[in-house]
């Protein structure tokens, strides 16, 4: 996500819809991707997005530029998506369990030669989906957005050590749960 000029932010905070559209253009793909990766459901992701952008619109007036705009957007998006995920009636109880990082291990399917690659990608994504959302959010901010530990800590208002341990635990879990040899063949 690129940083957005103060001028645009100011105009948008005064109700300029064109300026707000520009903000949307810079941030919507990230917001949507994160919302989708956390909720795993297109209509939920869209609702999260709408919610996030209305929050941004309402919050712009009070935005004091003490933190970077994008850090603020990261925080709103992660919190909104996680709240949505937790509230969603579709989620089973054990997914709500904070300690249970992973819900269940999908069966290792037998794969034909040509299907190994996509099958492993799908399988890997299936494993990622089952990480609890706080871990997923850290991974997305780190691996997709390329944020440093400090930036993630600031965005999510958590200690740096928590960022470190969430990333480490998420990676360990993915390693443990995936067929390691198969994973290497997949690339």
């Amino acid at each position, binding site marked *: 996500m690129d940083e957005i000029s103060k001028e645009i932010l100011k105009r948008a905070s005064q*109700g300029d*819809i064109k300026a*707000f*559209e520009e903000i*949307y253009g810079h941030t*919507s*793909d*990230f*917001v*949507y*991707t994160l919302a*989708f*990766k956390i909720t795993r459901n297109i209509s939920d*992701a*869209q609702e999260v*997005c*709408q919610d996030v*952008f*209305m929050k941004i*619109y309402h919050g712009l007036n009070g935005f004091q530029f003490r933190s970077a705009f994008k850090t603020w957007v990261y925080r709103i998006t992660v919190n909104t998506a996680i709240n949505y995920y937790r509230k969603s009636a579709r989620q089973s109880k054990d997914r709500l369990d904070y300690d249970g990082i992973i819900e269940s291990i999908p069966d290792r399917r037998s794969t034909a030669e040509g299907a190994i690659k996509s099958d*492993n*990608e799908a399988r*890997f*994504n299936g494993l*990622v989906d089952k990480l609890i959302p706080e871990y997923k959010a850290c*991974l997305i901010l*780190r*691996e*997709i957005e390329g944020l*440093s*530990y400090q930036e993630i800590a600031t965005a999510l208002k958590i200690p740096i050590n928590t960022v*470190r*341990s969430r*990333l*480490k635990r998420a*990676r*360990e879990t*993915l*390693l443990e749960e*995936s067929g*390691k040899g198969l*994973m*290497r063949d*997949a*690339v």
Partner: protein
Amino acid sequence: MQCKEIQDLLKADYFDGEASQRDQRQVLEHLDSCGKCRKLEEELRTQRVLFQKEKLQNAPESLWQNIREAIIKEQLNQEENAGYGVLSRLKELFLGQRPAFALASVFTLILCIAIFTGVFMQERQSPVQVNSRESILGYSLDNGNSDLVYGLGTNIEQYFF
């Protein structure tokens, strides 16, 4: 350093470019001589590639339209409450983005005026004209309602076209 410490660094700080230079050097030296840790590093890299592969999702087009409408509706309500700005917001809503829609709105408006004046100039009316007068009066009287904005764009258009 033992394998355990090296692996802790591999799974977090070293892998994320957060390790000190000293730690980094120690990890590199260890990797040269330890196949087990080298294998772990390879697996972590594979994992990263797979994770990054699931590409960014593009937000659907309709999303912005929904958000834009929600904001404009809100602005309208605010200004409505303050008692000003109806015309300028109507203009923004209708002429804002969709040229075809704007054209249709203008055309509808002209048609409305034409029929409206026609209705008053005629003494006797056919049932169709009575209906159209009723609906036009219905909308024109209902000034403070924000639904009016959407009603003008859809209902009357559907009625006439």
